[in-house]
């Protein structure tokens, strides 16, 4: 199966720090597809906070998301939406992560 790909730019000033990395990995875990995040030549597992943090993605960093699997499209759409929302409520997070 070929991989689905999307590109996204980190726009929140704090970058992809621990809280966004957790939200990102937690969301990725809800999908069956294998999902990877790529920064330049550095490729990591989207479902691991530890891996996502190794990207050290500051504001302005471009990331490529690749997913392989039945729900690949939906997974990438959801992840891109999360990043583009500046992780929805970064710093003032109070909602649950039910979505």
């Amino acid at each position: 199966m070929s991989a689905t790909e999307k590109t996204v730019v980190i726009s929140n000033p704090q970058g992809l720090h621990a809280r966004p990395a957790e939200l990102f990995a937690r969301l990725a875990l809800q999908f069956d597809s294998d999902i990877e995040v790529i920064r330049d030549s550095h490729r990591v597992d989207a479902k691991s906070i530890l891996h996502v943090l190794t990207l050290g993605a500051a504001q302005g960093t471009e990331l490529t998301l690749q997913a392989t699997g039945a729900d690949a499209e939906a997974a990438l759409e959801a992840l891109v939406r999360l990043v583009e929302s500046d992780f929805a409520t970064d710093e003032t997070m109070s909602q649950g992560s039910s979505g």
Partner: protein
Amino acid sequence: MKFIDFVSREAIRTTIDVDNKEQVIRSMATALLESGKIAEDEQESIVEAILKREELGSTGIGRGVAVPHTKHPSVSELVGTVAVSEEGVDFDSLDGEKVHLLFLLVSPPDRPGDHLRALENISRQLRDETFCRFLKQSKTPDDVWQLLEEADNNQFV
């Protein structure tokens, strides 16, 4: 950013006797206080801020590692310390595992870049299983420091 740039050697603890998340965080903050990295009258405020941050979502990042942290206006540079718990502490980590290795970070509010680079360094180094295992097996702060120095010199990755 290297470990030795933000880890306070005198604040490393390997013999912590704690039952829960709050105790380990308090114990690490005390270690920072004892090594002169944070002010006594700010300690409680720092602990409260770290605990509040944990309420948003655990900083247990997997593989038995946690990075409790906060921004705090009382520090002028990023300060951090390491603790090793042989028994492990329940930290509500995403992978459900107990935490054996903790990196606690306190950073000035206006320096998000330093904080991000410290997280990047910690996570990148800990991806190496040997380094991660050796750190968790450390019996003394000197053991921990030596491993951090070796990692800084790229001996693990």
